[in-house]
């Protein structure tokens, strides 16, 4: 699962350090989203807020946040052309200072018996439970 707010932040970073040679594609939000090859894209409020969540309820389905999603040069592949660019990994690793994660893995938690509780829909509301510290 990735968060559009984080995508927006990375996009802003890229356009601020843009050297002109690979900028055009990366200024389009949709093309940046596709590079992360996520199953779920959410419209959240704050960049990287998903790092602080322990559980999520999406619609009626509960998930455990199973871990953060480590990223590599694979996000450099333009999903429209199949060519590679240094971005967005370059900006992401500069911003995250060593910890190059983007998005989280979710693990389905609702009991098997509860019918209808395992369907996800675009537009569903998302509730989060923060980590206990």
């Amino acid at each position, binding site marked *: 699962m990735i968060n559009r707010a984080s995508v927006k932040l990375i996009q802003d970073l890229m356009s601020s350090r843009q050297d002109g040679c690979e900028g055009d594609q990366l200024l389009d939000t949709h093309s940046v989203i596709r590079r992360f090859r996520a199953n779920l894209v959410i419209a959240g409020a704050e960049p990287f807020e998903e790092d602080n969540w322990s559980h999520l309820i999406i619609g009626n389905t509960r998930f455990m946040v199973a871990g953060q999603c480590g990223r590599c040069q694979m996000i450099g592949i333009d999903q429209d052309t199949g060519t590679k660019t240094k971005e967005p990994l370059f900006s992401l690793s500069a911003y995250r200072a060593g910890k190059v994660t983007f998005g989280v*893995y979710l693990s389905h938690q609702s009991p098997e018996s509860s019918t209808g509780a395992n369907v996800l829909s675009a537009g569903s509301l998302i509730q989060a439970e923060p980590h206990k510290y």
Partner: protein
Amino acid sequence: MDLKELAANALAQNKKAALLVGAAGAALLGFGLGYKYMRKPEKAVRVGVVSQILIHPLKSGKAVPVSVAECQKMGLKSGGLEDRHWLVVTEEGNMVTARQEPRLVLVSLSCRGGHAYLNGPDMEELKFPVKHPDNPILNCRFHITVVLNAIY
């Protein structure tokens, strides 16, 4: 009113005030403890909405946007397509992903009428039956971090 009387009055009022402050403090402590121990362990807050659901039926292949998907043991499923269900392998059984072949991201996989269809730029459509009951099972070599039951 002489000075002595005034002092005694002030003292009495102060005592009352001190008692009140004490009672308020105890009540606050009670509420605090109650809040700490009686409330549900974590409170869920609304954080956003699902903006897109994407399924990649072929590992490293083109994404398919869907509006509804089912959570299954091995990931999301929608309209007969399961996430990362298919994998390209070499004849020797080595996996092929966009790591070796970045242009694999341009290849789409769709299913209809019991057949899977592969399409990509500058290639003829490739069609094969989804079920191959007579084909031998190939052991493949994998070198990825496997996160079981996960949704990406």
